[in-house]
């Protein structure tokens, strides 16, 4: 097969792949922006994972605003205006500013008939007390000062049981107070009014995010200068994360391309190498994107940002070829030239692919996707260099090889001379390692998954202020309660809620939301009804006498006894779900789907998370779900294991190298990259950058890439000028890509980039140590 035919076939394949990718993109390739989507399932079972996903989406759609003004009336007017602007802007399923007045009819129709089975905890204790008499109960109620309001006339609820039970339906206690329908906080000298809204659609969908952000900007702009709006909500954070990652991608991509173009033009003084080099990169990127699209069905934004930094690495292979072509001058023969290049190039590609393959084995979808992208991308670039380039390089270079590479030859000779001084190969590492020790000792780790997403100051501050002012800090943890059916779920939930109430009274927790507060278990409603019968209604004489003494008409006692005797079935969850009263709380019921009897209890204002976590101890079917916590624990587990993995990977690379160079020389080839790793770890310690799984992944990866420069140098010592040119050039392009990555505002990418940048910089600088003296 001729070189041209081979190149044409390969080009045809790539064109087909590009067409497929274009079709995927045209159909709309989902772009994932949820940082948690990078992590594997963390929960013990599928139902818990489904509950996390559903509640996450439900809560992720919610956004909250605080509109404030010094003047109360102005603050309310501003809140109305703000809410109206949000509604007009669109993109929301609902916008709630001023709450509609609670319709007492709704409460009565849901609970009125079943009220004899509804007792608050203190009243149940009161009735259970052996000393309880109807007479004392009635007179006590009438003697209460500042009589509490009731929905029913005094004669229908003379003991006040129903009125007190209804107080559980009030919104969770917080620093907010309902004033004329506005949830209001008085904070220093400002009056702040809460406006909440629910986005329409998937909070991670770019279109949804843009609509919500645009609505916020419009509503904020509509307020006068004296009114101040704050915002919070996961959707705003997600939109910012997307914006930051997009900006990173653009900056890294554009920076790499411009840098590579300039470097290639400077080094080779010809358009052809630059264009062919970029073509090989393009082939790699097209194949990588197609591969990920076919395997995963979606691309994470982080993968794209990382992919942009891969440009600098993928171009290395063509640089090596052009340098050799350049150096051969008139002696260039395309078949011999490639035959000489192939072994070294293949070893270099093999070590890189090995490192990425190790990453792909990690059970982190995000890291594995990055690794798959790189595997396919680098393999594509390598294939294009081996198959496509020969067709274009049949002619020898017209430039004088010696003149073209003289400066690099001199530079290399001087640098080698410096490194090759007596004992340098031993002394240099010892000195460098000694300098690293304090850095290693000051290393810290941080596995908190929440620190991985970028957070802008303004948004974080507003989020923090809203949490401070409202006291409603929904930390994302919740309890999941499961049972054989509705009643078992409710009963188990009641046991948990009892403990949560104790925590609330003790100040460890601000509030919770639970279905069983609205619908007590049927068995409890029946037993409460039985208790009321036993203590009050079963014996009509004392009740009649007591009501007469208290001043009620003779008719009142009989009417009340008749209401009790008429009875009513206990309130059931489906009654509650059918009532508009349940609207704000429906997400709590069956969060894992209609086939899994379950409920969620959400928490607000966790003052003492440790004690709250113990609330589920010993309760069957109850577990605390802490997605961020378990994800962080998982990150920590893998980070801790990344160090042993690094040694295993180093051994694997050493093995590959030994095949080609023999054990002793292979060790020597490893020295520069080993030094690079040591220094990079120390840089993290010195700069106070906490080590995460992403930094560890960066070190694992830089092992495979960093060793390449030593390989290139060792392979090409017959033509030092050209080889050094290739090493310097490919080092520069790679460093450019990862250097730009280390500037990312996305913490995960920043650490990844920093680990790669530092390791590779040292590997390039010390590459001559790999040569035999």
């Amino acid at each position, binding site marked *: 097969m001729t070189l041209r035919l081979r190149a044409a076939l390969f080009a045809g394949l790539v064109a087909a792949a590009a067409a497929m990718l274009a079709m995927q993109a045209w159909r709309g390739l989902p772009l994932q922006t949820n940082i948690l989507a990078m992590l594997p399932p963390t929960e013990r079972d599928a139902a818990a994972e489904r509950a996390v996903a559903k509640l996450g989406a439900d809560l992720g759609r919610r956004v909250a605003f605080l509109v404030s003004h010094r003047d109360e009336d102005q603050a309310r007017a501003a809140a109305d205006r703000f809410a109206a602007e949000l509604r007009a802007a669109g993109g929301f399923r609902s916008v709630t500013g001023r709450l509609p007045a609670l319709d007492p009819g709704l409460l009565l129709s849901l609970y009125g008939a079943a009220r004899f089975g509804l007792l608050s905890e203190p009243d149940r204790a009161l009735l259970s007390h052996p000393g309880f008499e109807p007479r004392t109960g009635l007179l006590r109620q009438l003697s209460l000062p*500042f009589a509490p309001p009731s929905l029913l006339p005094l004669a229908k609820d003379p003991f006040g049981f129903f009125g007190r039970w209804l107080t559980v339906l009030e919104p969770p*206690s917080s620093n907010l107070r309902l*004033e004329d329908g506005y949830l209001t906080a008085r904070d220093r000298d400002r009056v702040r009014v809460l406006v909440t809204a629910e986005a329409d659609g998937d909070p991670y969908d770019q279109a949804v995010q843009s609509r919500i952000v645009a609505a916020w900007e419009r509503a904020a702009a509509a307020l006068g200068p004296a009114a101040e709006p704050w915002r919070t909500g996961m959707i705003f954070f997600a939109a910012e994360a997307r914006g930051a990652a997009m900006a990173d991608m653009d900056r890294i991509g554009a920076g790499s391309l411009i840098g590579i173009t300039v470097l290639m033009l400077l080094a080779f003084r010809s358009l052809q190498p630059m264009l062919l080099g970029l073509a090989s990169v393009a082939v790699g990127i097209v194949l990588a994107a197609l591969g990920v699209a076919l395997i995963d069905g979606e691309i994470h934004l982080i993968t794209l940002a990382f992919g942009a930094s891969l440009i600098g690495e993928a171009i290395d292979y063509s640089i090596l070829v052009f340098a050799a072509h350049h150096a051969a001058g008139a002696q260039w023969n395309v078949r011999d030239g490639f035959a000489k290049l192939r072994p070294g190039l293949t070893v270099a590609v093999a070590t890189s692919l090995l490192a990425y393959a190790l990453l792909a084995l990690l059970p982190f979808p995000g890291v594995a996707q990055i690794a798959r992208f790189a595997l396919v991308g680098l393999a594509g670039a390598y294939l294009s260099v081996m198959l496509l380039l020969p067709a274009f390089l049949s002619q020898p270079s017209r430039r004088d090889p010696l003149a073209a590479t003289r400066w690099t030859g001199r530079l290399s000779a001087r640098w080698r001379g410096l490194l090759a001084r007596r004992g340098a190969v031993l002394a240099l590492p010892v000195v460098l390692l000694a300098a690293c020790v304090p850095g290693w000792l000051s290393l810290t780790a941080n596995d908190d998954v929440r620190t991985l997403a970028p957070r802008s100051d303004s948004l974080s501050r507003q989020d923090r202020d809203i949490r401070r002012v409202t006291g409603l800090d929904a930390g994302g943890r919740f309890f999941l309660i499961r049972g054989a059916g509705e009643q078992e779920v409710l009963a188990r939930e009641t046991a948990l809620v009892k403990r949560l109430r104790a925590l609330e009274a003790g100040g460890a927790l601000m509030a919770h939301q639970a279905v069983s507060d609205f619908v007590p278990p049927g068995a409890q409603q029946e037993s409460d009804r039985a208790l009321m019968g036993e203590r009050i209604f079963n014996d009509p004489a004392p009740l009649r006498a007591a009501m007469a003494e208290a001043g009620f008409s003779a008719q009142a006692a009989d009417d009340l006894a008749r209401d009790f005797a008429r009875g009513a079935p206990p309130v059931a969850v489906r009654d509650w779900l059918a009532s508009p009263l349940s609207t704000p709380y429906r997400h709590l019921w069956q969060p894992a789907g209609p086939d899994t009897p379950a409920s969620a209890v959400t928490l607000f204002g966790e003052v003492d998370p440790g004690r709250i976590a113990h609330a589920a101890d010993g309760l069957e079917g109850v577990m605390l779900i802490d997605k961020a916590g378990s994800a962080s624990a998982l990150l920590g587990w893998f980070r801790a294991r990344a160090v042993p993995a690094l040694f295993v990977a180093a051994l694997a690379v050493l093995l590959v190298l030994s095949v080609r160079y023999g054990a002793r020389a292979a060790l020597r080839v490893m020295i520069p990259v080993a030094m690079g790793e040591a220094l990079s770890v120390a840089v993290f310690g010195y700069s106070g950058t906490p080590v995460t799984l992403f930094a560890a992944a960066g070190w694992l990866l830089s092992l495979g890439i960093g060793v390449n420069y030593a390989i290139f140098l060792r392979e090409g010592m017959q033509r030092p000028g050209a080889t050094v040119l290739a090493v310097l050039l490919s080092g520069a392009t790679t460093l450019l890509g990862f250097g730009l990555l280390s500037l990312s505002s996305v913490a995960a990418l920043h650490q990844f980039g920093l680990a790669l940048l530092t390791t590779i910089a040292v590997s390039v600088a010390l590459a001559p140590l790999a040569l035999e003296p």
Partner: protein
Amino acid sequence: MRRFFVLAGCLFACASARADALAEQVIRRLAEYPVVRARFEQQRESASLPKPAVSSGRLVASRKDGILWQVESPVTVTLAFGPQGIVETGPDGVRRLVAPRRGAVQAEMGRIMQQILSADIAQLGATFQLEARGTLERWTLRLTPKTREMARFLSAIELGGAKYLESIELGDTGGDRTTIRMRDFATSDALEPGELQQFTPP
């Protein structure tokens, strides 16, 4: 003609400013004493009750700690409206928490009384329209709910007195009316330890 309107407007503004000023003066005066003790008699009228329900007992109001409401007749029960909620002490001396710290409407009235006694004009002004009549020596203060939530169950509170708060009249929207009269006032600087204990939840 225009001058007349300006003049009239000014007069009106001055009058309402004086009323506000009197309300403020009255409330500040009530808050002068750290602790006030008195006897009370409460009368409750309701459509459900052919004859009013009457109860009586002792009242201790502390600016700092809250209000202790000790009913002696027709039953013995003590309610402490404090910062930690409402704590009830039964005839047997057993304390129990009947309403938690915040949120409960039940605690709302206790909170309002405490706002009056601690002269928290900012909070009161947020919930009520304050309207004072008379002089500082003999005054009545009418609190009309400003917010929808309060207006749902309360039509107005009327306070009357001289040096001390002598009467409270509460009208609820259902037509029920509660009248409390106080007498035999005594002041002190702090609560007795036994009184303070009744504010502590069990």
